[in-house]
């Protein structure tokens, strides 16, 4: 009843029908509204060129990477969780589970851990100068046994563990796998995600990440190891979100993200690793902010450009290497201190634009995050936002519902065009690494950030409650206070750990790690760094100790 009758048997729509029939047998995905109207899972017609439009699940995946998506399995809700000590975070995890959150796919539990700054950068809690940041903004983790506390009693084969951190990524995966091994879990059943933000570039400063060459090498090592031993693990996330949060426009952020993928693929090719083997485990972290329609268009453009680049530039043939998996996050930079309840609304429409774009997972920020760490109430409200969209609005019934809109299609095409322009410019400048090294990327991003701020200051850009509709209200919101004792406890626990472990065994394992790192740096035995990180973590080496070895071999930026 609903689509144009396009019956050409070889066309996209017919192909899509066959795919769905094959995959889902007799299952119907037609929904019915309260008014009694039947709603198809996808709508189609002629595209801007006047030919039959592509369907979701068809190259270049503009409309989505699956023929059927939320109609079958909703997005994964991944509230970011993490503060203080592992035991303290575990309490919050239990609360979320109770409230109906932390749902992974197909009945799994899913947790999206964020770590404090020292951990994120690969420092142990007793490193000089980091004390004030312990447990603030994330969990303090430095040894395999911390995961025993964090995931105590969990069936790891049914738990998706996502880890959000920077330079400490390789070591952190080592800690997790060592803890899983100790509990007797086979690696090939473990599913999760390592953001691996081991580059210090997109407008971020500070932190001690590896050299560009070293970063690529480590990414390749982890990807190769996991492809073989932990095949369900997602080994790299390109954070378009972070680039936006540093101030970039959507077009810039998408372009730099694709340029990053290009750079990683080039490294793999150089090392003799086939992109098809590792790319399927890469993914994106994308920001959903204020430009409601542009967010949707940029997502579609990102998927299209990703598919084209991987196929045309790197010869990928596996569909999983052409499909961009996306984890959405609402925009932190929009969260205002003034009139914080407004942020509930901002997060809601951000989440909706993500759903309408067709994303795999979602993190909805807490509304009070501009004030400090989120309260329990705020975190629950974020969960409710997702639940309301999923279960009340009917937004899950149709894939790419804005596909075919004159506006969205025009915007998608334009963003794609501009993104390819920037990629060409980056190529001309010698590639992404050269652009990072010369400071060009940082300059572009800082300029965009400054521009945005000036627009807000001048009133050219409205921020409700900040430069328009301002009220002088007294502050009355509870702000979460992290445990002031967390730092002391973390440091004491680390000291105890060092006293109790078998030092000889640990030292030997770190020496092995060092040899493996040297071999990998020289282009041999790719995958053995990760293997030795697991072994060292199992021998009770700490994150900081392993990180020191990695920095010695793979360099340190700045």
């Amino acid at each position, binding site marked *: 009843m609903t689509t144009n009758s396009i019956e050409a048997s070889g066309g996209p729509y017919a192909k899509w029908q066959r795919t769905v029939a094959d995959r889902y047998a007799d299952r119907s995905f037609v929904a019915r509204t309260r008014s009694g109207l039947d709603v198809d899972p996808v709508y189609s017609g002629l595209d801007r060129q006047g030919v039959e439009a592509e369907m979701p699940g068809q190259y270049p995946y503009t409309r989505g990477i699956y023929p059927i998506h939320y109609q079958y399995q909703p997005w994964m809700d991944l509230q970011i969780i993490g503060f203080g000590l592992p035991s303290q975070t575990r309490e919050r995890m239990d609360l979320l589970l109770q409230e109906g959150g932390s749902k992974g796919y197909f009945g799994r539990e899913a947790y999206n851990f964020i770590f404090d700054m020292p951990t994120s950068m690969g420092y142990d809690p007793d490193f000089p100068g980091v004390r004030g940041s312990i447990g603030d903004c994330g969990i303090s983790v430095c040894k395999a046994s911390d995961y025993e506390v964090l995931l105590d009693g969990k069936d790891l084969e049914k738990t998706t563990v996502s880890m959000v951190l920077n330079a400490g990524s390789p070591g952190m995966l080592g800690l997790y796998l060592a803890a899983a091994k100790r509990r007797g879990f086979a690696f090939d059943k473990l599913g999760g995600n390592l953001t691996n933000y081991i580059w210090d570039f997109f407008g971020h*400063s500070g932190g001690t990440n590896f*050299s*560009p*060459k*070293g970063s690529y090498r480590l990414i390749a090592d982890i990807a190769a190891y996991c492809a073989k031993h932990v095949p369900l693990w997602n080994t790299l996330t390109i954070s378009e979100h972070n680039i936006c949060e540093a101030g970039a426009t959507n077009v810039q952020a998408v372009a730099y993200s694709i340029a990053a993928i290009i750079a990683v693929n080039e490294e793999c090719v150089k090392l003799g690793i086939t992109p098809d083997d590792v790319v399927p485990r890469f993914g994106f972290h994308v920001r959903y902010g204020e430009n409601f329609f542009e967010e949707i268009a940029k997502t579609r453009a990102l998927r299209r450009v990703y598919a084209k680049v991987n196929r045309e530039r790197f010869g990928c043939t596996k569909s999983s290497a052409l499909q961009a998996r996306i984890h959405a996050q609402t925009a932190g930079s929009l969260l205002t201190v003034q009139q914080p309840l407004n942020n509930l609304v901002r997060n809601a429409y951000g989440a909706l634009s993500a759903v309408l774009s067709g994303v795999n997972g979602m993190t909805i920020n807490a509304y009070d995050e501009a004030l400090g760490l989120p309260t329990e109430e705020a975190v629950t409200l974020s969960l409710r936002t997702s639940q309301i969209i999923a279960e009340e609005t009917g937004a899950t019934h149709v894939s790419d519902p804005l596909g075919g809109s004159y506006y969205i299609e025009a915007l998608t095409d334009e963003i794609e065009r501009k993104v390819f322009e920037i990629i060409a410019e980056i190529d001309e*400048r*010698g590639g992404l*690494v*050269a652009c990072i*090294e*010369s*400071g*060009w990327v940082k300059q572009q991003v800082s300029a965009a950030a400054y521009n945005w701020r000036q627009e807000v200051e001048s009133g050219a850009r409205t921020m409700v409650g900040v430069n328009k509709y301002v009220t002088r209200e007294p502050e009355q919101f509870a702000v979460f206070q992290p445990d002031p004792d967390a730092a002391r406890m973390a440091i004491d626990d680390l000291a105890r750990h060092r006293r109790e472990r078998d030092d000889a065994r640990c030292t030997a394992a770190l020496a092995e790690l060092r040899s493996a790192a040297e071999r990998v740096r020289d282009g041999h035995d790719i995958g053995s760094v990760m293997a030795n990180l697991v072994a060292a973590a199992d021998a009770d080496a700490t994150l900081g100790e392993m990180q020191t070895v990695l920095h010695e071999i793979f*360099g*340190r*930026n*700045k």
Partner: protein
Amino acid sequence: MSPETEAAHLLQNVSGGDSLAIARAITAIENATAIGAELSLAVRGRPAKCRTLGVTGPPGAGKSSLISALTAILLERYPRIGVLTVDPSSPVSGGAVLGDRVRMAAHSRNPDVFIRSLATRGHLGGVTRATRGVIDVLGAAAFDLVIVETVGTGQSEVEVASLTEVKLAVCPPGLGDDMQAIKAGILEVADLLVVNKADLPDADRTAGHLKAMLHYRGDAETRSLLLASTVTGDGLMALAHAIDARFRASINEDRDVCANMTVTPATLADDAAELVRAFVRYTRDARVSDICLAINRGEIRHRDGLIAAVKMFVESCDDAAGADAHSRVGS
């Protein structure tokens, strides 16, 4: 207290190594105050012990990180090192963001490393108007080596040639527009060339290209070309040795005359202008405003007003001398 006397007091503390005094002295010279002008004069010509290294190169070459890494190594032979980094002032607002020393954080706590960020304040040539004076202050504070990092626009970096003994040109890997900048200005000036970020893919090719260029110019014998990476540490020792070797080669055993001491009518004119400028600009004597008013109203000729101001300056010097003598008697 006259500016001359105040400057002398400050200089005493500077010579004693008091870092707050050094900082204040640099500010005074930068701002061309009366004290600053006196200071510049008093510290003119640094002790032979104080070597100077100029570091030039286009933006993005990694000069600051390289200087930081070299400083760590050079401290062994040069126990007290000063670093001056130069960033451009905004031509529109006159302000500046001075971000080079972010890359030198390793030395923030070392009392033997003094780092100062200078803004060009409209001065062209790669350094600042005050750079000579600041180098001299550091010399007076018994620094063994002063490293000057130029602003890095490439073409106009030649002023550093006259300010520093040894010149190091830093080139990023890659053969784009930066190459033109390097060819144009920096090569004229450099004793040492280093291809930095040698851990990146294009480094060897760039080095080869530069080598060919030097050979073509017939310069290959007198210049050294090296590769270095602050990220892996490769080449840094060799670079430090090369710099040190250049310094030792330029020592003239008989030389006990301070660098840049020769006074010529040109340098005397500059010094005179500086002293008078500082006085007329900053004096609290209201007669200067009166002179300006009179000139603007057409009551006196511009030139006559000028002479009157200069006479005021001479008067103030005489008064100061008298006051100093008086205060010495009184104390």
